[in-house]
């Protein structure tokens, strides 16, 4: 047999030998419980098995090729979010955020105006929603923002079925547990998978992934207080911390945009910061209330500007891409009538009421707070 054919036979047999363990791993992963399609699950399997750089490169290439054009016909209306009801009346006691100052003029009806997320939420709704056009160069893009009253609500970190991958004693079902749905007002996506964010995690007071100094961190203390900080407390779990989820450097800190929002290894193994994709972020206002923002076709910088305009003084980027970006509110007690923050959000509003691969956050009314 000619040498070339023998070499071909060797390579063919080697490829088949390599495919056996890879195939077993793939089939095993695909046969696990999923609430995403085979395509997304396959990409996730590839990411988790050494293909993260490859996937990111393909994503960069794809999103660069399909980047949106600047300009375009002006919008005539904004998507309807929240409940247009008496709940939008001026409150008398509690702090309410001011209207988000529109960027583009003339403004559209309801632009930047906060509306309650739930029906019958009274004069102090725990979650308010708004939309506005955030970028004059792209007047067709609409950002969705949610404001969460920290005095009335409690944030919880919920592990997904596969993320975080570390063994957890209390992983849970990967969805909002049934007993907690009665008080559930909102759920939203978590950060990047730990393996791509080079960040840490404290869950139920225990370090599950070593904490990293300098990284933006959502912290819940044992007394129920939630904060968004730049972590400087070392690799371990301080006594008062119940959970701490890190994700990349802060994009806003002490009211100012991070001056280094361009690309670099500190921003994780993912698509470039300047690539326009679905992005989401979480901020905190000067009164300690949380702000969530998400929109399609955002860079990290434009996302940071959305959060800053909405009132965030500190903020971090959460997960990106249409497959992972979700903010869902529940219009009635018992997690009834779930609704996405923006109508074009890809995932079902039922997402966190069934087991999900990735970790997420749930927002529930505190004990003593009623709808």
């Amino acid at each position: 047999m000619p040498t070339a054919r023998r070499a071909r036979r060797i390579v063919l047999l080697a490829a088949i030998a390599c495919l056996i363990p890879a195939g077993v791993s793939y089939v095993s992963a695909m046969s696990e419980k999923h609430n995403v399609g085979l395509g997304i699950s396959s990409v996730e399997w590839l990411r988790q098995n050494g293909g993260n750089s490859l996937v990111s490169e393909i994503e960069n290439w794809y999103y660069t090729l399909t980047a949106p054009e600047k300009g375009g016909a002006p919008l005539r209306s904004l998507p309807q979010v929240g409940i247009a009801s008496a709940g939008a009346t001026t409150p008398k006691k509690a702090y309410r955020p001011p209207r988000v100052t529109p960027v583009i003029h003339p403004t559209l009806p309801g632009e930047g105006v906060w509306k309650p997320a739930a029906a019958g939420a009274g004069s102090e709704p725990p979650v308010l929603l708004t939309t506005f056009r955030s970028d004059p160069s792209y007047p067709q893009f609409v950002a969705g923002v949610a404001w969460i009253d920290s005095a009335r609500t409690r944030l919880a970190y919920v592990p997904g079925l596969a993320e975080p991958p570390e063994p957890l004693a209390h992983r849970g079902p990967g969805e909002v547990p049934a007993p907690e749905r009665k008080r559930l007002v909102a759920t939203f996506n978590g950060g990047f998978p730990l393996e791509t964010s080079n960040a840490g995690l404290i869950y139920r007071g225990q370090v599950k992934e070593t904490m990293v100094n300098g990284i933006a961190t959502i912290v819940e203390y044992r007394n129920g207080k939630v904060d968004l900080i730049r972590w400087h407390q070392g690799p371990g779990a301080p006594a008062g911390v119940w959970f701490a989820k890190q994700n990349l450097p802060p994009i806003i800190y002490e009211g100012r945009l991070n001056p280094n929002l361009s690309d670099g290894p500190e921003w994780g193994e993912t698509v470039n910061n300047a690539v326009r994709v679905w992005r989401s972020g979480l901020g905190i206002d000067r009164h300690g209330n949380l702000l969530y923002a998400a929109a399609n076709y955002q860079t990290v910088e434009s996302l940071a500007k959305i959060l800053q305009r909405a009132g965030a003084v500190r903020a971090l980027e959460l997960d990106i891409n249409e497959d992972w970006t979700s903010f869902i509110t529940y219009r009635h007690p018992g997690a009834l009538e779930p609704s996405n923050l923006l109508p074009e959000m890809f995932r079902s509003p039922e997402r966190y009421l069934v087991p999900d691969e990735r970790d997420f956050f749930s927002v529930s009314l505190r004990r003593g707070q009623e709808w």
Partner: protein
Amino acid sequence: MVSRPRRISAEAAARRALLVDALCAIALALVALTFCAGLGIVGVIAVLTLIAIGLWFATEALVHTLKRR
């Protein structure tokens, strides 16, 4: 002492060559599985390799068919 037979049939030589090639392939696969970043990358490269070899076979068959004509 068993001496090597002087004449080896074509079938036996082919079997020996196949055994050597299989051992080489296993060694190559072990190297790939050891040094690649993960099973995902190994799988992708293996699939691409199979496609390339499949095209090679197909091209050979096509050339063979054309020559016959």
